[in-house]
């Protein structure tokens, strides 16, 4: 089946892409929503335009759809992008990296259903620690590009998801109810390498901004 992957460049959409490819799905394109609203309810925002570099090393065409990122209006832009993927690449299904958010998942389900497309959520309800361990097992190189919850701070930006990271987020989960995979929007990530990349990406520039427990890192990849 020809599919498109809703792609943020973060760990979940990259892992969902790997699942689809491993099962033989024909991934015809990636779809990214570029939101002007840094606090979008639906879409990942830090370093979002780096998806262009990731699509290059994946050798998969990319559709970027701009959106103001206003609640519910951004769904019309998502629908527009999905329609584009259907028309241009003949996709019959959409793959997402949704894990727990019923808010996001049900909205994407409604759009796909309306457009007559299958909707695949291969990470749905996946245990958070199992998800992080699977990234390590599959040799993903992932860094944090945004933190948005106490007690996470500036020091966490750029940190790699590795065994040490898992150990620490498990402690934060017990103590502060932080979701270990950032599903509650506690953090956002960026994938520098994974099994489908033709070459590893490197951070060549970084710009950090924020305060308190809300920090974001805009990076330039090469």
């Amino acid at each position, binding site marked *: *089946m020809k599919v498109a992957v809703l792609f943020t460049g973060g760990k979940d959409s990259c892992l969902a892409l790997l*699942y*689809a490819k491993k*099962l033989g*799905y024909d991934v015809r394109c990636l779809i990214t929503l570029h939101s002007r609203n840094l606090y979008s309810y639906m879409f990942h925002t830090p370093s979002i335009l780096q998806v262009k570099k990731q699509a290059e090393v994946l050798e998969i065409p990319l559709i970027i759809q701009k959106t103001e990122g206003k609640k519910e209006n951004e769904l019309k832009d998502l629908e527009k992008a999905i329609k584009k993927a259907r028309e241009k690449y003949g996709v019959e*299904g959409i*793959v997402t990296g949704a894990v727990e958010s*019923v808010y996001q998942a*049900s909205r994407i*389900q*409604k759009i*796909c*259903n309306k457009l*007559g*497309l*299958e*909707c*695949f*959520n*291969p*990470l*749905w*309800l*996946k*245990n958070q620690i199992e998800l992080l361990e699977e990234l390590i097992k599959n040799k993903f190189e992932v860094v944090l590009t945004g933190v948005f919850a106490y007690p996470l701070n500036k020091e966490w930006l750029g940190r790699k998801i590795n065994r040490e990271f898992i150990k620490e987020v498990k402690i934060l989960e017990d103590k502060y109810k932080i979701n270990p995979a950032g599903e509650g929007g506690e953090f956002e990530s960026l994938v520098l390498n994974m099994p489908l990349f033709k070459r590893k990406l490197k951070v060549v520039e970084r710009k950090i901004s924020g305060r308190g427990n809300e920090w974001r890192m805009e990076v330039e990849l090469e």
Partner: protein
Amino acid sequence: MNKKEILIIDICKEKLHYFEFVKPIEDILRKEKKRYFVKHYRDLTTKDLEKTEKIIICGTSLRDNEFLKDVERFKWIKKTDKKILGICGGMQIIGLVYGGKLKRKTEIGFFKENFKKKFLGLFGDEEVYHLHNNYVSFSREFEIFAGNKIVGAVKHKKREIYAVLFHPEVRQKDLIKNFYLMI
């Protein structure tokens, strides 16, 4: 073979749907250290049915309705004495096997469901996750526990056959636990 193994039946046509509709059920059983095995309905054998006491028939996606063409393959539901729980598509199969009619209604997301009587641990108002384009009507052999025109939860009046239209793996994991803990 351990008679207490739970049989999980996969009704998905698309392999990628397994992770969304079958694996979450497996995860609940695994966490509770329950023994189970998974079979796709097309590969199901009489031996599989013999070696289990409890069967969970999982759901599938909104547009994956291939199983509706194969309801004949589920005739064993009426003949077996096993305890059965049908989820969404699994519920539709149970209803159709017992002569119900398939009807069209799309519901996606959280909805309030009221359980008039205790149903596998649920009672009163519950916020449940629905993901379906169809539902089924049920014959008088079944008692309705939730829903009216669109039946949300039923149990066979004489047998241990339960069915829910919503996805308990999302917010009502205990319903699944209460099913496999049944004696």
